[in-house]
């Protein structure tokens, strides 16, 4: 166990290895480690942010779906009302139309009846005269009995 130059040699090589480590080993590895640490921190922060954003988006979606549903039901209700209204209108209109038609038909019928009655009435006098002539055996002067005949026709 002699102390000798080995001591100096060891000291020098120690210094060289430390210098080398200081220059080429420690800084790059530490840089990589720090960078990775930052990356991980960033990633975690991003994940948190994304989760929050997702929550917000989810809430927004729910709100929109609810709104859409409300809107849809509103539209549906309106359509239903409108349809009912339309049907009702159509019915009323049809009914009115029908009544009008019936009314008209009735008027027509009355008119026809009246016309027929007038026509008949006109012919009654002729018939009456003819009948009377037959009965009496002679001609009845229509003009002489015009008043009577007219009265008869009117009673018909």
């Amino acid at each position, binding site marked *: 166990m002699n102390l*000798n130059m*080995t001591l100096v040699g060891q*000291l020098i*090589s120690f*210094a060289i290895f*430390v210098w080398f480590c200081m220059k080429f*080993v420690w800084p790059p*590895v530490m840089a990589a480690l720090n960078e990775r640490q930052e990356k991980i921190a960033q990633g975690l922060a991003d994940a948190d942010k994304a989760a929050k954003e997702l929550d917000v988006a989810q809430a927004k979606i729910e709100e929109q779906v609810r709104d859409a549903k409300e809107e849809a039901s509103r539209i549906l209700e309106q359509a239903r009302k409108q349809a009912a209204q339309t049907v009702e209108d159509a019915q009323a209109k049809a009914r009115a139309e029908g009544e009008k038609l019936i009314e008209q038909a009735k008027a027509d019928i009355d008119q026809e009846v009246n016309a027929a009655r007038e026509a008949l009435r006109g012919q009654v006098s002729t018939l009456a005269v003819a009948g009377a002539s037959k009965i009496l055996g002679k001609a009845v002067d229509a003009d002489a009995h015009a008043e009577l005949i007219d009265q008869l026709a009117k009673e018909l």
Partner: protein
Amino acid sequence: MAAETAGGYIVHHLTNLTFGKHPVEGWTFAYPRGFDPAVHSHDMQYTMTGKMASEMGFMAIHVDTMLWSIGLGALFVFFFAKAAKYATSGVPGGLQNFVELIIEFVDTNIKDTFSGKSTLIGPLSLTIFCWVFLMNLMDLVPVDLVPNIAYALGIEYMKIVPTTDVNATLGMAIGVFCLIIFYSIKQKGLGGFVGELTLQPFGKWMIPFNLLLEGVGLLAKPVSLSLRLFGNLYAGELIFILIALMPFWIQFTLSVPWAIFHILVIVLQAFIFMMLTIVYLAMAHEHH
């Protein structure tokens, strides 16, 4: 490697491959000239080698310690630099994952202890932890494997665990000690640093005593740092060597438990060296 006795075997395994300036032989590997296996015992050669290495004094270098420590350090920086070069903040690959695991472990320990700002302490701690761990890891290589290969290649000594060489641990501890001094002066100024050494704990009328107390405290840091690591690994290695002296069919009953226990020791010692470095530097940054 052909020890005659257990003592010779142990001495051989604890001898570094030393190259240095011998007062008589000049620059040479520590190896007794004129050694003849036919005449001299190997044990004697080991003793002679140790004596030669001692005679070289400070002007000697443990070639095996240097080669293995630099090789392991290079292995460490190679893989870590490779991972760092292709480091991505995206999904990491296998190597990057492993490197990140260690770096984050080191960084966590620094952040728990060291409150100041420093670009040096991270790489410093990482280097200490990984390098010391790798050097300690050599302790788990069977004690005879590499020395026998080296012997076959004509290299007489090969101690492969650099942290069982006090030079290696003390070299690192001195590096840390220099940083302690540097940061103390940088943070507190020269006056502050000297004041801390002399004016406490007993005030200015006890300066010599304070200096003695604080000086010992300061110097104890590198000494304890290096001797703790060295002592643990040296003892561990020695026990592996002692186990290797037993009959081969019974060795595993001791070497396996000891190796498993040592897995804990080598990591723990690397961790302690790193942790104490961080603590010492944190103390250097703090004002009392």
